[in-house]
């Protein structure tokens, strides 16, 4: 972790160092030669040397000895030392199983350095660790709970094991037939587990089951509409998206789906209205911009179509687009409003 110090900082600090001991200590620290770093930094009278000595001790597992100095540096105004000390403190707290304390530091670091890869990496590790520990507790303390099957299904989905995920969701439903979201999850996993047309029927049944328990689930209505469209029942699909929008008027995906349907029906004005709302609600929604571009084009408004194309071009620029796509594939169900 301590290898993350950047060279410019070393160079800058070295320039201001009063003694050769500080310079050689910093160089050794950067090399990962902590024995030499500790020896040389101990000799330097420079106050920065004390912080780097603490960082060296933290890096060699002596967090208790380093803690006070690191905390002092983390509270100081020296941005470079603050960042390094914060990272070391978070690492020490994680090593000591003080995850709550680590979370506080990570949160402060993220607020101050929101684009710093080292800070984000440490935060991700912390979240992963907390997630693992919580899952472990769930499996230990409530192994028979439907939640165990549900979380297993969700994990299997993220690993791409959709057929196995459907089995876990079915077990969860058997244990708790009244629990919300299980049928929805099962329906979605069924869609992902097979390319066969029969999967559409099976998934539709699950979304209907979800809606039977929760008639206000706009996302289940939307998914049912998507299946009906794939089954070439556009009128039935349109009715489902209408219903989804009655339940949640600010549902961009449903607006896009209905807008596309109206476009195919050559109802350009209606399509434009729906898609304009989608774009306003979800300015980064590529599908909304694309469909709106086509709607303007079909309506003969090429100037507006070109504006939408420009928006789309901007959104599709790599590499952000690729990573966004990757995240989309993880497919979390968005919270309902």
């Amino acid at each position, binding site marked *: 972790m301590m290898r993350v110090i950047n060279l410019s900082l070393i160079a800058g600090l070295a320039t201001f160092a009063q003694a050769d001991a500080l310079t050689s200590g910093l160089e050794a620290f950067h090399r990962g030669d902590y024995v030499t770093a500790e020896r040389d930094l101990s000799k330097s009278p420079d106050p920065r040397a004390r912080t780097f000595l603490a960082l060296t001790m933290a890096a060699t597992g002596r967090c208790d000895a380093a803690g006070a100095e690191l905390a002092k540096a983390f509270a100081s105004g020296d941005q470079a030392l603050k960042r390094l000390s914060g990272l070391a403190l978070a690492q020490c707290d994680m090593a000591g199983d003080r995850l709550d304390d680590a979370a506080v530091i990570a949160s402060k670091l993220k607020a101050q350095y929101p684009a710093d890869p080292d800070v984000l990496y440490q935060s991700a590790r912390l979240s992963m660790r907390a997630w693992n520990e919580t899952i472990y507790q769930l499996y230990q303390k409530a192994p028979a709970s439907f939640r165990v099957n549900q979380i297993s299904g969700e994990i299997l989905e993220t690993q*791409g094991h959709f057929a196995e995920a459907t089995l876990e969701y079915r077990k969860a439903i058997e244990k708790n037939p009244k629990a919300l979201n299980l049928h929805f999850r099962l329906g979605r996993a069924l869609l992902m587990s*097979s*390319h*066969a*047309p029969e999967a559409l029927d099976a998934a539709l049944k699950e979304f209907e089951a979800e809606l039977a328990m929760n008639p206000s689930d706009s996302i289940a209505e939307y998914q049912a509409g998507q299946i009906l*469209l*794939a089954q*070439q029942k*556009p009128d039935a699909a349109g009715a489902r998206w209408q219903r989804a929008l009655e339940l949640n008027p600010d549902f961009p995906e449903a607006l896009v789906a209905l807008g*596309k349907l109206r*476009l*195919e029906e050559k109802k350009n004005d209606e399509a434009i209205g729906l898609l304009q709302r989608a774009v306003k609600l979800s300015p980064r929604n*590529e*599908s909304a*911009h*694309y*469909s709106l*571009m*086509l709607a303007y*084009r*079909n309506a003969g408004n*090429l100037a507006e*179509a*070109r504006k939408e*194309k420009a928006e*789309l*071009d901007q959104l*599709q620029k790599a590499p952000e687009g*690729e990573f966004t796509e990757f995240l989309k594939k993880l497919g979390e169900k968005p919270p309902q409003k």
Partner: protein
Amino acid sequence: MKLFFLLLAAAFVPDFRDIAVEAGLTHVFPNGGLETKEYIIETTGSGVAMIDYDNDGLLDLFVISGAGGRSRLYHNEGGDRFRDVSDAMGITRTGWGQGVCAGDYDNDGYTDLFVTYWGQNVLYHNEGGKRFRDVTKESGLTQDRIRYNAGCAFLDYDRDGRLDLFVSNYLKFSFEETPKPGANPYCWYLGLPVNCGPRGLPFDRNILYHANPNGTFTDVSEKSGIAEPHQNYCLSALVADFDGDGWPDIFVACDQTPSLLYMNQHDGTFAEEAVLRGAAYDDNGKAMSGMGATAADYDHSGWLSIFRSNFSDERETLYRNRGKGEFEDLTISAGMGHNTRFVGWGCGFLDFDNDGWKDLLLVNGHVFPEIDRKNLDIHFKDRRILYGNLRNGKFEDLSEKAGTGITGKHSSRGVAVGDIDNDGSVEVLINNQGESPSLLKQAGKPPGNWTILKLIGTKSNRSAIGARIRITAGGVTQTDEVRSGGSFFSQSDLRLHFGLGEAQRIERLEILWPSGLREEKTGFAVNRILVLQEPAPQK
């Protein structure tokens, strides 16, 4: 009577059989590994062609090979028999062969062949039907570096009567610099280490060669606008006059990047307009892994629509031309939204029942043989797909009942369509990776009448490539064009086949020759091949 025919035709289900072995097409055409593929170059080959090189009236066959084999030319001996004439005809080039396109580039009356390679392309000049001569160097088509040349098409983009040449380029590839399977995130698929790319590999640009009066070609990619954009992994080239202005446009199916549509500006330049015209993405604005592409007036609108084959977990794409070269993705409503487990390649509109409505065939096969280890419903070798045109803008998937030629499993790439025995029923030639090719022929006779049109240009290029036909029979008007290239890296018969249903006569033929001459003819008999020559220019 009409109703009876419609019922008969609607009930007709073809029975396609693979007659390749009986026909003498027994050579195996290698294209990299069959258990695993280490490099992307092993995934894209190769195309096929159906041309009549010796003008004997019978279609001959050309099959391209990857490294480790050789491309072969087969002469049509009649009676559905073919003879390998590769050596005698001078077809000698080996290497990573990719695509093929045909056209009489020097207007000497014999069809020439252009074959693309990872490496140097080759232009085979047809020496009076007796031999092909490699004229690549003397025609100025030698490239200054190794390129991953892909699809190609002859076209007369400036309508000067000489065939120019478009060559799409996939990406920059070398064995030395390309990472090995699993080396980076672009070298994994469903948890399997697989060959890297196209993502992560450098883009290249497409090429347009202008034909000079002395038989040489000049690279005009930059000044024609074809060199831009260059952030697309381009595969198949499909040329047609999509906006009906009398000038050929170029559609390019691109892998994991937006497909391209170069619109002819009538001044030697093109403007790339795929996004705004609705032919770049799927209906969600998402780039697909476009592989093959074909065009037809499948709905009798008088406009040429585009079908593009894509990757598994993507829908195929049917871009309906809503007029003037503006497209809408009607894949789902046309009944083509369900075949998402296939990686599609060569494709062709063909009228298998001669009812006057173009049906569609496409072939499949995954790029990663390793996928078979996963026991999923996607496979390296898979069956073909045959869609029957329901004449209402929709298609019916007939694949499972259309015969063993369709249900047989192969990892197929190139497809060409043509009538090898001139009986009015079209055959299909398919390149299968690591196997002998397939030659599909119907066991039964299709119910409808037909015609085949062979066009000969005079002021226009001799192959009449780019000529647009409107044929009216039985009150139904169909539109098509003479086309070089298309499908996936392949060349179909340069003659045009039309099913005519129960029509007993062709009422009207309208020909818009590439020269701009518009010709109208009336009153032809059905069930025969018509040779139509462009009226000689007036002196």
